[in-house]
C-alpha cells in the first residue's frame, strides 16, 4: 500500500463515496428481485431466448452486487474496522457454487472449467464465505476473461496438515515480466494490447489479496512458462487458507 495519496484521490471524500456505494445495494437488490420473478415465471412463462437474456442480466447484476460488497469490505479493511463473518464452511461448496454460476459465462466463450483434486467432501475452513467466494470468483472470472476460446480452466483444491490451497490455472497468454510486480496493486491494468481490450476495474485482485490476508492466508500467481518452465502459456493463481481453527479464533 502506498502512503501518498495521488492528487486525484485527495479531492474525493472517501466516506461519501463509500456511502454512495452502500446505497447502490438497494436498487441492485430491486433489480435482482425483479429478474428473479421474471425468471420464475411470476409475470408469465418466458421463451428460451427471453430466459437466456434474463440469466445474463442476473449474472451481470450479481457480479455488480459482489463488486459493491467487496468495495465495502475493503473500505472497512482500509479503515481498520473490518469484521469478517467467519463460520465453518465446506470449501467445496464455495468452489462448486461459483463454478456452477460461472460456467454459463465460460461456455459462451467455448471454455471448459475442470475441477481437479479432492474427492469427497473436502475440508471445512473457518472463513467469511461471501468474501472468499468473491476471491475465488475474481480468479475464475479473470481466467475466463484472459483465456482464448477453446481453452481450458483447471481449478484444484488441495490440502495438507494446516493449509487449504485453491488454484485456478488458465491457458491464456500468461503474465509479462513487466506486469508481474503490479498484479495485486489497486487500479492496476495491464498495458498489453490484448488484455487492455477487456473490461475491468483494476480492483479485483487488490480486493482479493486484502480479503485473503484478512483470513491470515496468502495469494500468489505463477506464469506457466517463465516461473514453472512449462511449454504452454498461461497463468496459475492460487490462494492459501489456514486450517488451524484455534489460531484463527484467537485473534
Amino acid at each position, binding site marked *: 500500500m502506498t502512503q501518498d495519496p495521488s492528487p486525484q484521490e485527495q479531492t474525493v471524500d472517501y466516506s461519501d463515496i463509500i456511502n454512495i456505494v*452502500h446505497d447502490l*445495494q*438497494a*436498487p*441492485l*437488490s*430491486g433489480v*435482482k*428481485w*425483479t429478474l*428473479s*420473478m421474471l425468471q*420464475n*415465471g*411470476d409475470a408469465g412463462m418466458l421463451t428460451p431466448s427471453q430466459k437466456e437474456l434474463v440469466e445474463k442480466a442476473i449474472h451481470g447484476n450479481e457480479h455488480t*452486487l459482489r463488486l*459493491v*460488497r467487496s468495495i465495502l469490505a475493503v473500505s*472497512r479493511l482500509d479503515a481498520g474496522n473490518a*469484521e*469478517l*463473518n467467519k463460520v465453518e464452511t465446506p470449501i467445496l461448496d464455495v468452489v462448486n457454487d461459483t463454478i456452477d454460476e460461472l460456467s454459463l459465462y465460460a461456455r459462451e466463450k467455448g471454455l471448459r472449467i475442470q475441477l481437479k483434486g479432492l474427492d469427497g467432501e473436502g475440508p471445512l475452513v473457518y472463513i467469511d464465505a*461471501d468474501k472468499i467466494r468473491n476471491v475465488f470468483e475474481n480468479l475464475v472470472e479473470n481466467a475466463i476473461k484472459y483465456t482464448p476460446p477453446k481453452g481450458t480452466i483447471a481449478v484444484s483444491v488441495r490440502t495438507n496438515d494446516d493449509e487449504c490451497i485453491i488454484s485456478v490455472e488458465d491457458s491464456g497468454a500468461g503474465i509479462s515480466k513487466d506486469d508481474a510486480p503490479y498484479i495485486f496493486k489497486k487500479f492496476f491494468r495491464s498495458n498489453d494490447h490484448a488484455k487492455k481490450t477487456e473490461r475491468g476495474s483494476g480492483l479485483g485482485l487488490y480486493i482479493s489479496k486484502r480479503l485473503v490476508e484478512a483470513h491470515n492466508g496468502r495469494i500468489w500467481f505463477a506464469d506457466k512458462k517463465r516461473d514453472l518452465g512449462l511449454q504452454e502459456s498461461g497463468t496459475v493463481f492460487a490462494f492459501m487458507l489456514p486450517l488451524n481453527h484455534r489460531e484463527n479464533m484467537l485473534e
Partner: protein
Amino acid sequence: MNTMDNLKGKKLVWVEDDQFLSGIIASKLTNHGITLLHASTGDDGFAMIKKEKPDIVLLDLLLPGISGFDVLQKVKEDAELKDIPVIVFSNLGEPKEIKKARDLGAKKFLVKAAIVPDQIIDELSSAL
C-alpha cells in the same frame, strides 16, 4: 412456485423506506393471501405495529426517524407486541449488526441483496 398455505390470511407489516423495493414484492405477497401493510418510517412503523398487531414484521434498519433497531427494541419491550416475530431485512449485514439485532430479539436477519422473493416467502412461512 411456492404453495405456503400458512401465509393465507396473515397480516404483515413491512417497514421499508424504499417504495421501489416493497413495490416489487407486494403483488407476490398478496398472491399468497397475505395482507401487506406498509410503513416508510420507523415512527410510522411502530405506530402501525402497535395498532394492527400483525402476525409478522419485516423491518429495515436504516429508516427516516427512529431506526429499525429502535423499532425492534420498542416492540420487544411492549408486553402486547413482544411475541410478534420480527425479521430484520436490511442491506447492513456486518456481524456486529446481526448480533445487535439478535440480542434485541429479532427472529432472523436477512440481507436484501442476498435473497430473492421466493426466499422471502419461504422465510415468512417458516417464521410464522
